[in-house]
């Protein structure tokens, strides 16, 4: 990966990806929101320095979705409310904590709301000090240009010990990577997750819609294992 200075002004075309350094992150943060190159990270609490040379630390937010078995017996993409019913929403205000039992998972979110520039992608990684407790925060770590929202964290305690999570603690680091071609900021924002401020249940796609697109004519119903048509 190149460490050349990320691009500022002019075209990015033909250049390799490069990781934004502290200075560039800071400079992007100061741009007005009308500038497609602007970066938003809020609240960026500066009492402790959140920056590393090539990344910025993000904190754990206060809202969680905890998986629950009943009333849904399993996460079922054929049921519209399945993903919503399979989680229990919990609020842990700053100062309180959440215990994640061993080998359990929970959805959380960053405290910081971010908006990426049109020419920058992001990747969120578990902070090494957190990872060494065998706590992982991300399984879908890539963030697209122009994304806006708090980042949902798929937190997994893969250790044999229950772990305590305090909202407000630094938990991940965001690495920003300049792209060789910016996204078109005039295009309408797409995606199922525009502007979340807390973890949200997954927007599951119905198998008949996904499979029909690739020419599959039937699928099995997870409740009764019978075959259903994708054309109905």
């Amino acid at each position, binding site marked *: 990966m190149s460490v050349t200075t990320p691009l500022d002004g002019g075209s990015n075309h033909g250049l390799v990806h490069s990781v934004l350094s502290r200075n560039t992150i800071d400079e992007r*943060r100061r741009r007005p929101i009308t500038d497609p190159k602007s970066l*938003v*990270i*809020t609240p960026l609490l500066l009492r402790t320095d959140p920056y590393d040379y090539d990344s910025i630390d993000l904190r754990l937010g206060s809202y969680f979705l905890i998986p629950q078995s009943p009333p849904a017996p399993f996460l079922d993409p054929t049921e519209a409310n399945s993903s919503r019913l399979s989680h229990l929403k919990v609020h842990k*205000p700053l100062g309180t904590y959440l215990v994640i039992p061993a080998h359990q998972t929970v959805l959380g979110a960053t405290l910081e*709301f971010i908006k990426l520039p049109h020419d920058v992608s992001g990747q969120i990684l578990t902070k090494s000090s957190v990872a060494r407790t065998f706590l992982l925060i991300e399984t879908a770590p890539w963030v697209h240009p122009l994304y806006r929202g708090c980042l949902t964290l798929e937190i997994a305690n893969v250790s044999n010990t229950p772990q305590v999570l305090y909202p407000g603690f630094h938990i991940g680091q965001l690495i920003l990577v300049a792209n060789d071609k910016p996204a078109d900021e005039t295009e*309408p924002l*797409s995606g199922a997750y*525009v502007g979340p*401020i807390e973890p949200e249940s997954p927007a599951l796609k119905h198998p008949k819609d996904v499979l029909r697109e690739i020419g599959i004519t039937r699928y099995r119903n997870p409740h009764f294992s019978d075959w259903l048509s994708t054309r109905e």
Partner: protein
Amino acid sequence: MSPLRDQLQREVASLYAFVQNVSRACTPPPQSVSYSESSSKFFEYISHLADCTKQHILGFDSHADDDAEGFIEARTELLTLRNAWRELHQFIKPSADADTLNQPTAMVAALVDRLHELPGFESTDFTIFHTDSFYYAQVNPSAMEVVVTPLARIVDAHPFPTNLGLIGIPNSQGNAMFLNCLLAHEIGEYAYAKRGTEAHLEMAAAAALEEHMGATFSTKGVTVQSRLTKTVLKFAKEIFCDLFAVRLIGHCYSFAYIELFDLPNLLGKDGALAVGDSVEPQILSYPDYPSHPFRVKVQSDLLKAEGWWDLIKDMDSRHGTLLRVLLDLDLQDFVKAEEAAGGNRAPFVKALIDVMPRVKEQVGNITNGIDSRLYEYGLLWKPIAEYLRNGIVPSTLNILDPASTPTEVHPTPITALNAAYRFYLEGVEALMSRIKDQNVSSAQDRAAWMKRIESWTTKALEDVALFRGTES
């Protein structure tokens, strides 16, 4: 054991079980949810009160005599205890229902912080409880004292925490945002009661009634005069609380008021007040309250006097139009409407109008020196709208300051709230135009993005509270 003692012991046990059941919701409070500090304070007190009551009850039969006189005395005490817990019953479980996910936590914190700017209210806090009612409610602090003080004295418990108020919100609005600006009115009721404002208005209300009712008032007995005066005072209290709320949080209070009571329906297709020659019922006062248009008219007058109006007069919303129309109306139009309707409430409206200068004076005394945040709003409402239009939480704004220097600012909660509510009313189409596959004609799509604007505003209030904490 004598029959009397036996009977008494049964009743003692029954009361013990009753107190256990009533206090169970918060002793201890549910651990699966979180509570605000003020809720926890309330639960701790109830828990303490329950412990003291149960302890007192356990020692009860030792001083219960076998004679009939002693029985009656003991029975009276039991009744006092039971009545007090019956009163508390209506607040305990509804308070436990209002955990941090089921009350507008960030909004309440912002309002309480704002209240702390007023002299004498620096340590006031509020416990939120749910009500089945469509309306918000404030528990009069003196009424709470009347319930708790005798109980606490009998069972040797601490007095009810000073400076802790109780406010009820409709249970449907637990996680809403903007409509909960109406909480400012309830805070006004608390301030009204705490400052004994009614006493400052009573004589003026009676004098105004005497002037407008003449002998119909002056020849009546004290009881009737007092009842009539009370009506004017009830009217005046509502106006006080409305004006207090506008002073405390600005135009967003009026927007919430207009929304809750669906007042844009007062406007005809042409945007004019749909009164015409006939008297519409909405403009007439209610038995205990001035009419909604009257109240909004008084609010719009204050918004104009404070300078808010110049900043919102061009907004693209029927809420703004309604404020404008009511601003043009004369208070005497409400008197004429009452007279034309032929009811008996015209003198009350006239008396209220006479008393209003004193009401304003009282509001001014309590809110004296508070910064309305008008200047900040003038600088930041457009940037905040721009952030929201782009789907971004407006807690850190990059703007050009008056000297055109780029600068990073964090709005105060009051500015964030007012600017965001304004955007909520007039900007949702602009936001939706930025999002793929959204239909502005679809109520479902619109409602989803309106909810998003509320959530971004909530997040902004949470963020700016953090900024303030780290800056202090």
